[in-house]
């Protein structure tokens, strides 16, 4: 019954307009801003549920499509639709936004209406980006979301926030403008900005490689891959808790989404040629960044590096496809790798959000992110410690948590490609265990380190609720990933069948 409703437009514009409403109504009334912001976020989340329930499994077709003419001079349309790849990411976005709004309830004190409004506008823009079927529309949302994020980090961030936010903006802007040139080039070739028309385009090898590199610039910066990851630790450390959560849980996924939506299907031959490069960069991210994470003394920075390492798994899963094919001659393993990467993205959305929230909980109390300022937190905050340990376990990929499913699938696919790739990828289990459990040991366990820790109070009901929701999803996805895989399977099979065809 929902298939004909303009659900996607609703999901985009409700939070954007709601965000401006919050700004107008709540400027001088913080409690109004909080409640209205929460109401809009919850309404958007509820409105996004039909996507999950009415989504037709077993087809790779774009669903819930909407089409209206937008810029006739360039044949650009307001064309929306979702498939098995974008739909789960949209749901993740609406859920995480509710969590971020609640998390800001007391911890953001300065200009709360602006904060709520920026978060809501960003939500609408991110949903629009995931739902866009037109390349210009995609690009507009892709870039526009930089503006609210720029302000969020710059206004509510830490001491070096200005440096971090300008670095964040310029880095991502730098990546994306080359993609714009590539998109325009393909428009000249195909006469349309529809992404699916780009998929059907026959492109020569040189052009494919250049286009691949243009997309690589955009998405590798966003996800981020080694060596263009350096903006992320800065942005994460300086961003307020909510900004970090949005960045880690959703914005990083945009890079992965872009690889699946653009790079692989538009330039399969270039991807096949350059897959070694991508695999090597992914492995560097997994191993080297894992080692870098070990030595961090700032909790947020540690989690930021851990995010980069986990995203290495995502890109590894995506680009293993060609390697597996050339080794084994079948595309089965390719689907496994891509599905694994997708599961990893969703799972990381929950786990990283929870980890950053946990740091936020501590930071709200002691205003420090340094590991050395803590120790023995379990004695004063037992509930918090329980959650923290759970999410730390999930971060290391313990079976039964969502972190395990994606990593297991990718490692399984890696075995089909090459033993050594699988071996290196599997070191992450050790490294992640190393940095995460060491973090737990130093922060949570041991004797009470100082008077500040002794004076800590455990989580309040609001924080408990946030952690509980995320823990629920982490465990649900860990023990029962089948519904999520069901949704994605048809789309991923279709994608793999598509990239199996040479476009030369």
């Amino acid at each position, binding site marked *: 019954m929902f298939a004909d409703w303009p659900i996607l437009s609703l999901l985009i514009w409700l939070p954007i307009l709601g965000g401006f409403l919050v700004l107008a109504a709540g*400027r001088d009334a913080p409690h109004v801003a909080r409640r209205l912001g929460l109401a809009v976020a919850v309404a958007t989340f509820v409105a996004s549920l039909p996507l999950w329930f009415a989504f037709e499994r077993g087809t790779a077709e774009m669903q819930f499509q909407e089409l209206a*003419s*937008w*810029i*006739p*001079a*360039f044949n*650009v349309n307001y064309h929306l639709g979702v498939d098995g790849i974008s739909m789960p990411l949209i749901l993740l976005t609406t859920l995480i936004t509710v969590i971020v709004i609640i998390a800001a309830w007391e911890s953001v004190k300065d200009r709360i209406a*602006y904060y709520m409004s920026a978060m809501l506008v960003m939500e609408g823009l991110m949903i629009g980006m995931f739902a866009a079927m037109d390349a*210009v529309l995609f*690009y*507009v*949302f892709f*870039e*526009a979301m*930089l*503006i609210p994020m*720029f*302000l969020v980090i*710059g*206004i509510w961030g830490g001491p070096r*926030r*200005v440096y971090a*936010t*300008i670095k964040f*903006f*310029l880095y991502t*802007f*730098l990546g994306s*403008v*080359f993609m*714009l*040139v590539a998109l*325009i*080039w393909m*428009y*000249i070739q195909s006469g349309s900005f529809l992404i699916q028309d780009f998929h059907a385009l026959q492109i020569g090898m040189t052009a494919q490689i250049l286009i691949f590199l243009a997309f690589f610039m955009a998405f590798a910066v966003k996800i981020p891959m080694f060596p263009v990851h350096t903006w992320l630790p800065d942005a994460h450390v300086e961003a307020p808790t909510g900004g970090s959560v949005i960045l880690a849980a959703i914005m990083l996924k945009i890079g992965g989404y872009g690889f699946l939506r653009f790079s692989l299907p538009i330039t399969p031959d270039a991807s096949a040629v350059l897959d070694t490069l991508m695999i090597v960069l992914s492995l560097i991210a997994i191993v080297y960044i894992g080692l870098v994470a070990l030595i961090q003394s700032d909790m947020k920075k540690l989690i930021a590096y851990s995010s980069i390492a986990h995203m290495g798994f995502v890109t590894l899963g995506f680009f293993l496809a060609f390697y597996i094919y050339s080794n084994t001659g079948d595309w089965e393993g390719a689907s496994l790798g891509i599905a694994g990467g997708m599961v990893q993205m969703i799972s990381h959305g929950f786990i990283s959000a929870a980890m950053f929230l946990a740091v936020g909980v501590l930071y709200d109390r002691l205003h420090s992110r340094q590991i050395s300022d803590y120790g023995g937190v379990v004695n004063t905050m037992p509930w918090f410690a329980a959650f923290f340990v759970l999410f730390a376990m999930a971060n290391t990929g313990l079976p039964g948590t969502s972190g395990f499913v994606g990593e297991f699938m990718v490692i399984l696919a890696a075995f089909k490609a090459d033993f050594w790739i699988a071996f290196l990828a599997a070191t992450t289990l050790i490294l992640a265990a190393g940095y995460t459990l060491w973090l737990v040991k130093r922060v949570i366990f041991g004797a009470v380190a100082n008077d500040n820790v002794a004076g800590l109070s455990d989580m309040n009901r609001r924080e408990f609720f946030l952690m509980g929701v995320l823990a629920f999803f982490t465990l649900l996805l860990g023990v029962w990933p089948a519904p999520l895989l069901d949704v994605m399977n048809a789309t991923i099979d279709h994608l793999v069948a598509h990239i199996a065809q040479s476009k030369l």
Partner: protein
Amino acid sequence: MTFEIPNFLPAVPEMFVLGMACLILVIDAFLPDSRRDITYGLVQATLVAAAGLTLWMMGPETVLTFSDSFIKDPMADILKVAVYVTSFLVFLYARPYLMERGIHKGEFYILGLFAVLGMMIMISGHNLLTLYLGLELLSLSSYALVAFWRDNTRATEAAMKYFVLGALASGLLLYGMSMIYGMTGSLDIAVIAAELVAADETLNIPLVFGLVFLVVAIAFKLGAVPFHMWVPDVYDGAPTAVTLFIATAPKIAAFAFLMRLLVEGMGPMHADWQGMFVILAVLSLAVGNVIAIAQTSIKRMLAYSTIAHVGFVFMGILAGTDSGYASAMFYVIVYAITAAGGFGMIVFLSRKGFEADQIDDFKGLAKRNPWFAFIMLLLMFSMAGVPPTVGFYAKLAVIQAAVGADLVWLAVVAVIFSIIGAFYYLRVVKMMFFDDPQEDAKEPIQPSGAFATALSINGLAVLLLGIFPGLLLSVTHYAIMG
């Protein structure tokens, strides 16, 4: 010799503006200083009425009159409307600035109106001499406007520079025109184009020679590198109200001038001037964007930003396709609207004895007046070309034109420099939102009435045109392609 009465109808808006300008000149002479608002009101009414006339007479057909020296076509109509709108905004923004400084004189508006008339003639010129006369009417009015705050030494100095360099450019232009005339035997744009198609190879060298002078003069007037030296000095030295004027509407007229002269007249020599424009475009993008970073004065920063924008306009033109010209036209109109808002914001911040021409003066604006900080944010992101503001579509359009003309490398160069450019626009946003106000400027600012409304509409237009860019893009495509 027979004398035919020419068809006056296509030139009715020009005649109306001329008549009104003369009338207001006389009326103004009899007004006491306290009643200058009558002059202001009459000038604004003239612009509105002229816009009404132009819109009413708008039609798809091309009409030539006055022995083919005057043309009325869709492009002329649309560009004229754009000139009226930006001039209207400029006069509106200028008024509080002039009043606070005690220089609220009728001359400002009357010279402005004559400049508008010059622009209209540039837009509708179809003969080398008509085009030249239009340009000179605009230029002479502009020199006088820059110098019009006569007690201000910096303005006087700027006017001198502007005049000397502008006169040089006019001389170059005339020299180039004379060579083209010598080779083709006509001043008529259409005849020149026909002669060029028929011309044999041996004429090529003198023609290219003449072409170079035309291109140099145009580059001078638009402020493209390496003929840009006057731009920062004049923008900075002129009173903000005047900077506001010379930075906006004349760019639209200069675009029309370029279209008439190079595309319609010298169009058959496209292959020759394309290369020159590639060099001008790349240099303008590079110098404009890089040097803007080092500026501490917001007026100088916007001046260098203008230079960079001119590079983008050239990218659309040098593609040599209808869609490229339409993109350049879109870019120029978008630029004029955005720049009007940007300089309007400087007027907004300034008060008597305080020019607010330093970037630091924007510090903490979000605390002093969050709404106008938001407006400035929109304007800055539009100049940087970040969606969803209209500046993005302008860049999209010209890059699309360049890629369509197989100049992918030029598109890549342009986007690289637009990233560099993004930095200094971001810095203004940073000052407004992340920094605290300066010690001597902490109190909130509450602008009044019409000025605040217009500036708000101007800023929101940048956003709304960005969310619905289809209409304006269709209009510019219609203007070029019919």
